[in-house]
């Protein structure tokens, strides 16, 4: 459910709107539901609204966790 994607904010627009960029495709969406968003931030976008800011530090931490999962092999 809830097709939502992380996209980069490239421009802030009046009336709590903004332009986001996903892989080179740009769209105008609402930033009404998030606060303190700056160009360069990543937000999760669903049905034309940003729902939440993405935390880059946590993203890195999660990726590191995945990589770690494979490091120790065999023994439980």
């Amino acid at each position: 459910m809830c097709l939502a994607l992380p996209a980069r904010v490239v421009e802030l627009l009046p009336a709590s709107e903004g332009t986001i960029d996903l892989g080179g495709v740009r769209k105008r969406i609402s930033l009404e539901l998030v606060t303190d968003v700056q160009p360069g931030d990543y937000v999760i976008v669903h049905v034309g609204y940003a729902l939440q800011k993405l935390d880059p530090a946590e993203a890195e931490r999660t990726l590191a966790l995945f990589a770690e999962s494979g490091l120790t092999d065999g023994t439980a």
Partner: protein
Amino acid sequence: MTKGRSDYVRPVDFKHGRVDMTHGGGGRAMAQLIEELFARAFSNEWLAQGNDNALFTVPAGRMVMATDSHVVSPLEFPGGDIGCLAVHGTINDVAMAGARPLYLAAGFILEEGFPLATLKRIVESMAAASREAGVPVITGDTKVVEQGKGDGLFITTTGIGVVPPGVEISGDRARAGDCILVSGTIGDHGVAIMSLRENLTFETTIRSDTAALHGLVAAMVDAVPTIRCLRDPTRGGLGTTLNEFARQSGVGMLIHESKIPVRAEVNAACEFLGLDPLYVANEGKLIAICPPEDADRLLGAMRTHPLGAGAAIIGEVVADAHGFVQMETSFGGRRVVDWLTGEQLPRIC
């Protein structure tokens, strides 16, 4: 000789005029529209004669005929319009038999009230496409329907071509072991169209890939006369065409996701809308199936041609009584690439 006042006929107002019922009535208004727009744009000896038909000599050998109706909306989009689409589409259908396209016929259904300026733009684009491809539109027809009974403009094109001797290309000829090739990136046309649809507007530099492929096909057949199947994956995309081949030939297929060329922006737009690029329409690409020993040579011939620069080998034909088209995902698993269900719709879930 001086022309008297009574001989003066006001030229068609292409700037502000609109199509009305008289343009399809068979009378002077229609003749004038045909002369000032269609005949002038397509400009060839057949249309100059002014008959309801076109006479030509039939070359020896096997002939191929194909027809396509074009109802695309919007009529104009980044990279093209319904006019050049109509020319390219039918040329391609003829070319997919390995044939050299010779002539086109075009039927227009105009909706009352349609702006003549738009019609002129589209017809001129169509004429340019026809000239560039070297395939003239030698006969045609025009009708007008009442306002509300048409989507502005519908175009039907029919084309004929001649198949060189020794060429046997048909969707039922694929055999286990054959290689599957695609001529370039998939999904461009469908995404370019979607980006203009109401309520789905996003800014993208994706343009429709609409193009006439007969030159590419000629180069391919020349290099590899043993090509088994050719088709351009229009509505329903790559996924549907592969399923068509599989069903016609009674085989299965295995393609590799990582080998399928897709532009980053097309991928992104599809992610946004929850669409699968495998099912998005293409108007300037083709899928080829050939014996495995000829695949590299075919790939080389495709890549040398401007319309095949992005060509790639994407998979192989396998024996499968159920006719499944399977795909090895970039992720490492396997999934079925099934027939498309109806029209692919964007989703929020």
